[in-house]
């Protein structure tokens, strides 16, 4: 069992999961940072299926500062769609009644309120950073370094450091003890303890409360917090740290030192998972009301997605990556056929308010390179800033939609290549599952395929799948309370739109020369043979659900996943998807021409090859 699954199970235990006898129906709720998604699942001929889904804006700030209002709106939409009564007088009907009203169970996933923001410090922080990322994999956590703070009074530099740290609105401090004892010693941990104590005192001062010009809205102030401290390391070093933070920290928890084995990573995973539940979720108005009807404690959406991806990878014995581009964060959850879990998260980059973080991280030119419509930096910045100011906005013109997709590509790439990610080297990537609003609302499924290809740059043969019902980020939470139901819905409804198999070659021959000959042999004896030139995208005629035997004959310098020039012939037929079968000979890493006209022409060609209209209707 991987960290994510353990975290989910651990949260369920802490959340005093209620015994759920035979569950006939369940409501899955995913409170996203901008939109709340709800799905009703139930038994249909002895199998659990998706019955209906709906979404409504998440309501966590004035004038509707109660997350339950958005949930009620989405529930009302499901009632309207299904004709089934789920709530009376604003209260969910639990359990399901004889007349079919109500549901037996409620599962809750959330990314609202953002990640658990941890400040990390300690003698082992640098040396053990890879292990920290592994231990926290699958959790909705943002880890930032805690600066060294001199004793007050602070000079201008110190004040700036304090202001920047406050702006992060941290939830806790993570102290990482020395690696394997080498860097530990009384001096190292005592210096860390002093620094942590100083920070706890500084952050506790209610700077926000006293400076806010507008006391009418408490949420506008950022009052000082008494932060909890989690320590991972040898027991000997825990004592001086505990002594230093006593009376200053909200709590102090010590877990064992980090080591590469999964067992040694689990305690920190559980401790931080609990911290998310008790601190990050604490500020969300109305969440307690949802907790009271949920069968288990809420889990983070990425944790939920991770559970589903792990299940799919084990069930189909394949390497699977789930991609969820949210408004405020981007989560990638990878799992290999042999059970390795490879999460990658960018906690602040997304296609809503998270666009600001993308611009700061990669700069406007990196986003603009994906645009075919003439767009200058000012227009891009205005769009991104407006999305920060109006979180619920959606693209309203083709140009804005193209900007949205450009940001989505960069968000995925940021998460994929971010600190601690081991996902970028995953090969082969058998299945790429796109979920979340960007993929669910695409104007053309080829847009989703292109976003996944451009951002993930898979090699070899990959199946692209869209979770158009946006179930993946809920099903992990549902699995905690009703595992069978979650598994059956994952198999039947979470992968409802196969886009088709994708062949991605790497290596290069001169532009325009054949990179690979693709042969499809159909059951009725028909054959389709096509030479795909280097630097292109091709869409082959393999209809949705149609099966054919695939043979690949690459040029000597071209690799289709088996080695340069090695031919491949599938032993089993492959199945076509909504886009037929795709071949990507653009090479790896994907490089776009630097000259604008050439780049736009190339992007337009690729889109047209997949059937996407270009120009103002792109």
């Amino acid at each position, binding site marked *: 069992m991987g960290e994510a699954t353990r975290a989910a199970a651990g949260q369920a235990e802490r959340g005093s999961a209620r015994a759920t006898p035979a569950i006939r129906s369940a409501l899955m709720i995913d409170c996203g940072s901008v939109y709340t998604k709800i799905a009703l699942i139930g038994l249909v001929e002895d199998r659990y299926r998706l019955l209906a889904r709906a979404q409504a804006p998440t309501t966590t700030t004035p004038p509707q500062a109660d997350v339950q209002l958005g949930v009620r709106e989405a529930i009302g939409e499901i009632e309207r769609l299904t004709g089934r009564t789920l709530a009376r007088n604003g209260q969910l009907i639990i359990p399901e009644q004889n007349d079919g009203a109500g549901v037996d169970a409620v599962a809750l996933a959330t990314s609202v309120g953002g990640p658990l923001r941890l400040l990390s410090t300690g003698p082992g922080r640098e040396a053990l950073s890879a292990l920290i990322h592994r231990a926290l994999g699958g959790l909705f956590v943002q880890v930032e370094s805690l600066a060294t703070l001199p004793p007050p009074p602070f000079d201008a530099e110190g004040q700036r450091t304090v202001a920047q740290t406050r702006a992060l609105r941290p939830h806790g401090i993570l102290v990482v003890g020395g690696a394997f004892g080498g860097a530990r010693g009384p001096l190292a941990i005592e210096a860390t303890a002093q620094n942590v104590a100083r920070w706890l005192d500084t952050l506790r001062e209610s700077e926000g409360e006293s400076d806010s010009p*507008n006391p009418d809205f408490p949420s506008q102030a950022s009052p000082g917090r008494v932060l909890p401290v989690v320590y991972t390391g040898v027991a000997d070093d825990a004592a001086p740290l505990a002594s230093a933070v006593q009376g200053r920290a909200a709590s102090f928890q010590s877990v064992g030192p980090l080591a590469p084995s999964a067992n040694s990573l689990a305690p920190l995973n559980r401790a931080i998972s609990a911290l998310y539940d008790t601190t990050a979720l604490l500020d969300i108005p109305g969440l307690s009301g949802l907790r009271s009807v949920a069968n288990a404690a809420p889990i983070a959406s990425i944790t939920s997605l991770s559970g589903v991806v792990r299940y799919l990878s084990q069930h189909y014995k394949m390497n699977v990556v789930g991609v969820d581009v949210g408004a405020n964060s981007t989560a990638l959850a990878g799992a290999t056929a042999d059970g390795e879990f490879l999460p990658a998260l960018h906690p602040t980059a997304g296609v809503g308010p998270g666009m600001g973080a993308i611009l700061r991280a990669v700069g406007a030119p990196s986003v603009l390179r994906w645009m075919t419509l003439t767009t200058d930096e000012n227009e891009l*910045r205005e769009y991104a800033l407006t999305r920060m100011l109006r979180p619920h906005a959606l693209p309203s013109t083709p140009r804005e939609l193209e900007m949205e997709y450009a940001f989505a590509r960069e968000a995925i790439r940021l998460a994929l290549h971010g600190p601690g990610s081991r996902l970028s080297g995953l090969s082969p990537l058998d299945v790429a599952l796109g979920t979340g609003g960007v993929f669910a609302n695409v104007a053309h499924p080829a847009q989703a395929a292109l976003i996944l290809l451009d951002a993930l740059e898979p090699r070899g043969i990959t199946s692209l799948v869209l979770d158009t019902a946006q179930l993946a980020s809920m099903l992990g939470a549902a699995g905690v309370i009703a595992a069978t139901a979650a598994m059956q819905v994952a198999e039947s409804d979470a992968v409802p739109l196969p886009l088709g198999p994708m062949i991605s070659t790497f290596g290069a021959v001169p532009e325009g020369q054949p990179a690979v000959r693709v042969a499809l042999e159909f059951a009725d004896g028909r054959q389709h043979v096509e030479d795909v030139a280097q630097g292109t995208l091709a869409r082959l005629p393999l209809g949705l659900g149609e099966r054919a035997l695939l043979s690949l004959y690459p040029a000597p310098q071209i690799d289709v996943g088996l080695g340069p020039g090695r031919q491949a012939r599938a032993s089993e037929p492959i199945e076509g998807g909504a886009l037929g079968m795709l071949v990507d000979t653009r090479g790896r890493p994907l490089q776009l021409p630097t000259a604008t006209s050439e780049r736009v022409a190339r992007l337009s060609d690729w889109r047209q090859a997949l059937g996407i209209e270009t120009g103002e209707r792109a």
Partner: protein
Amino acid sequence: MTTYALDYPLGRPVAPAINVRRRRALPPGATPFVQLNEQAHPDQVIAEMRGPNGVSQTRAGLAGRVVEVKTGHSVTIEGVATLIQGIVGVGGPVVGPLSFLPRGESLAVVPIPRGGIIVYPQRASLTLLQRAASGGAVGVIAGSASALELEAFTRTDLSSVFDGFTSPQGRQSLTVMLTEGFGDQTMDAAIFQLFTQRAGDVALLTGLTQPRINLRPEVLLPLPLGTAPMPTPLDNALTEGARVSVTAGPLRGARGTLVYMFAYPQISPADILTRSALIRLDDGSTKTVALSALDRLG
């Protein structure tokens, strides 16, 4: 089923008369001139600090009762005011009379009202912002501005400001509020009319903008003592009959009445399915608009 317009903390961009409390920060060492429960008027000096560079005064900006005095730190006043929220702003609280520039004069030479808050219903250019700052105005309320020009003026990455990582107000003397946002948008005629009716009145303008913590720019227009406040938040439900404005897309800036909520998602001009409503615009035409692109006005 009800859905809401959620971009304004009070429910709508304009609240004609609401009860507000505002904390007026004092410079370190300033001496407060008001006492608890005292009635303050907007132009009243509530604190003063004498330093090597002269006298620095803090004015109330708001008509109301002093509800808290923290010597050397802040004075909090509670009163009834007209509140107009902008969509974006920069800069801390400033107090000054609402002022208008003479029509037809070049921005390069137009006289700037020293100490005033300039109401400019069009797109504010970098030239206007620079001239307003150098000419001694304390604030500009404009319809819109270019993002790059506003960033050039503040010398700040606004995305960093909105996320709370940078604060530009310490570096600039001019507070700016845009009622319609970025781009090239004229100020809503009703809001501009409201400003013109209050020309010369002392107002309290704040440009602080941090959407993640629901901090939005605002201008407070004081009302006479004894004015009865309206209950808040104002109704922001997007229902049939509601007066709305379009905030994005080809119809951005248009006003109208919501006449029908579609039961099923509609295809937007961006070619995506989204929940939508039929709007009868003020020009008499009817258009389908995504709910996510609507503000409730009345």
